[in-house]
């Protein structure tokens, strides 16, 4: 049977419509469409897609199950590798991972298999089934040991899910009132519906994981208290401190970080103000500074809040744009403009303390820097002005000091993140493990999950060996 060259088309909300709502853009495959797409997979031996998946999902196996029309089997395959398939299917940068190396996509004129979209299909179809998993790990609870997880982002959720399945008593401490980390407060509804995140979290708490919200570790509960109450601790607090360029005018009303903008919108549902109480400005002309997923999310949110014009200012060129391609394309379709090779130098005051616009300078790409990307350098005399009432900086995050300053024994690296073994999450403190953005700096959901998986295994080894030692010493079981 001949293989289709192009991917099975997928339903999407029309750009003219979707810029007026926060509903999900991509509507997902139907099962028939999924089967059609699954049939394109070559079922490679030593499949390169699996190798480039940070959590090594057996991709050909679940795709085969879809092709056979067996969604349950597909879900079972997936659940062996990921606790958050509905999330990964939607937000992973597949083009640089599985789909980027897909053997089919390597053939001239062929598009890679739509692995992410198939993953999402399986996860969404599997909604109702998951509670059945419940008791499995729960029965064993508390028998092996107690583990504290700090932060309920993808890394923390993964550690918790894996350890509870192994039979640990796991408690997640989350600083905010709602769990999920960036999935909840950063990534917008139109890309990742919050009901999906909530569902994924429920499937983890259903396994017996305890979740304590409003618990800021280092403040509400100290590291010392965790040490005395738990056998081990995983830190997955993310890279949650926004960076500002610090150019003149940063204090003007109308200038904010993308973290603030998106938190107001997503976590606090500002887009439903005043039905929800947290306000968000209905801006007219918006500029976003940065070129990552965060910048795209802020820009597309601004459009949905009714802005007349939204522009993204990026220091490098289109080729270097770090955002997922799908988001970039969606942003273009939605009418967002791009100021390439541009860099803001000053925010202008309208005379009342509010933003009037942004002065920028043009850049050109010079020699490659440490990251291997060509360094943008300003072109003298190239200043230009963009009128704007709102400017949102999405230029990256740094390590949040709240927990780190409360945990002085923990060794940090030069950039201020926790120094941890990438294969095990081990830190300079024996009983503390760490992973996700707080180790790598702002990265991806799947890398955070991968780190969580590795740490779960390392924590299990550590706790078991500790228990074995103390059994030897005392000659009796201590738990």
């Amino acid at each position, binding site marked *: 049977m001949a293989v289709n060259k192009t991917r099975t088309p997928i339903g999407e909300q029309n750009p003219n419509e979707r810029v007026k709502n926060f509903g999900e853009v991509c509507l997902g495959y139907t099962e028939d469409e999924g089967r059609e797409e699954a049939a394109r997979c070559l079922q490679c031996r030593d499949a390169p897609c699996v190798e480039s998946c940070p959590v090594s999902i057996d991709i050909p196996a679940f795709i085969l199950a879809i092709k056979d029309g067996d969604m349950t089997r597909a879900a079972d395959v997936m659940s062996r590798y990921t606790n958050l398939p509905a999330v990964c299917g939607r937000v992973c940068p597949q083009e640089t991972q599985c789909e980027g190396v897909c053997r089919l996509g390597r053939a001239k004129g062929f598009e890679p298999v739509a692995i992410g979209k198939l993953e999402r299909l399986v996860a969404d179809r599997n909604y109702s089934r998951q509670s059945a998993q419940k008791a499995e790990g729960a029965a064993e609870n508390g028998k092996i040991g107690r583990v504290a997880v700090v932060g309920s982002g993808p890394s923390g959720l993964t550690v918790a899910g894996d350890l509870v399945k192994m039979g640990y008593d796991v408690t997640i401490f989350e600083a905010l009132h709602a769990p999920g980390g960036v999935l909840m407060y950063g990534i917008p509804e139109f890309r990742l519906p919050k009901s999906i995140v909530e569902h994924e979290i429920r499937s983890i708490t259903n396994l017996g994981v305890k979740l304590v919200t409003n618990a800021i570790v280092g403040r509400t509960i100290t590291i010392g208290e965790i040490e005395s109450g738990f056998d081990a601790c995983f830190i997955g607090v993310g890279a949650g*401190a926004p960076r500002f360029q610090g150019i003149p005018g940063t204090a003007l009303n109308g200038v904010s970080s993308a973290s603030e903008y998106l938190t107001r919108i997503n976590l606090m549902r500002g887009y439903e103000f005043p039905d929800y109480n947290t306000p968000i400005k209905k801006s007219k002309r918006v500029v976003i500074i940065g070129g990552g997923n965060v910048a795209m999310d802020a820009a597309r949110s601004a459009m949905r809040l009714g802005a007349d014009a939204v522009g993204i200012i990026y220091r490098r060129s289109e080729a270097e744009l770090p955002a997922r391609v799908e988001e970039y394309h969606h942003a273009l379709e939605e009418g967002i403009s791009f100021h390439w090779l541009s860099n803001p130098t000053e925010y202008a005051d309208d005379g009342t303390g509010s933003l009037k616009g942004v002065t920028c300078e043009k850049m050109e790409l010079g020699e490659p820097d440490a990251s291997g990307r060509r360094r943008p350098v300003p072109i003298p005399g190239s200043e230009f002005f963009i009128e704007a009432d709102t400017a949102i900086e999405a230029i990256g995050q740094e390590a949040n000091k709240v927990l780190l300053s409360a945990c002085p024994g923990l060794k940090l690296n030069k950039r201020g993140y926790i120094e941890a073994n990438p294969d095990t999450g081990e830190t300079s403190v024996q009983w503390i493990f760490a992973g996700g953005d707080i180790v790598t700096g702002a990265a991806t959901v799947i890398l955070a999950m991968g780190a969580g998986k590795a740490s779960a295994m390392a924590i299990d080894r550590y706790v078991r060996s500790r228990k074995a030692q103390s059994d030897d010493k005392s000659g009796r079981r201590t738990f």
Partner: protein
Amino acid sequence: MYKILYARDIAPKEFDFLIEAPEIASHAKPGQFVITRHGERGERIPLTVADFDPIRGTIRLIFQVVGRATAEMASLREGDFITDVAGPLGTPSDIERLGTVMAVGGGVGIAALFPIIRGLKETGNKVITILGGRTSELVIMKDECGRYSDELIITTDDGSEGQKGLVTDAMKFAASRGERIDRCWAIGPTVMMKFCSFTASELGIPIWVSMNPIMIDGTGMCGGCRLSVGGKIKFGCVDGPEFDGAKVNWDEFMNRMGQYRDEEKISMERYETGVALWR
């Protein structure tokens, strides 16, 4: 869910709540605050911790109704629950034995000042407390503050109690007696703290003020609470809330406080019509 053990009206639009929150109570220190959110649609707002009792596991919040979030909270009664209370947040006050200190409070800022006064007294300082307000009934917690003060000066704009005048007048008066004052704390409305800072600088006394910017998370994650101190960007929720009053950029801060004024009005109107319909 956090249980309200008592809810009292203590002054016009000012409320005093005792809340069951053992983890917060056992970790709180003077100068810290909590973030509260009431209802699934509620806004997250910062409120200073007016008192904490680690043994009973309670914290006390004293707040003024300034918008919808505080109005909704004020409608709660003993036995009700607040959806979320997170904390203690912020860097605690730097309480040490300094000698003679001056503590200046106004409005609900007096509540935030109270644990600092007590802390300063208990570490062996001589504490001169100045509490001010428009009129007598707006000067709250006089007895409690008095209990931990070596001297208590009350000022009112209308002269209904204590000295007629402003807290800054009382600051100058206290300093004029020749006694060396080693440090000052001022907590109250922004304008009051601004002028206390000017006065303290004139008198050559270092001053701490407690800033209350608009916050969301309160954990350093959003940067919405930023202000300029000594020309540098600081996050009110983690670097503060206390800052050197002589270095705060007051005009910029006040401008930022007005960012959501229009929206706050819409929100309050919505709330008031809701309440009216319900009645």
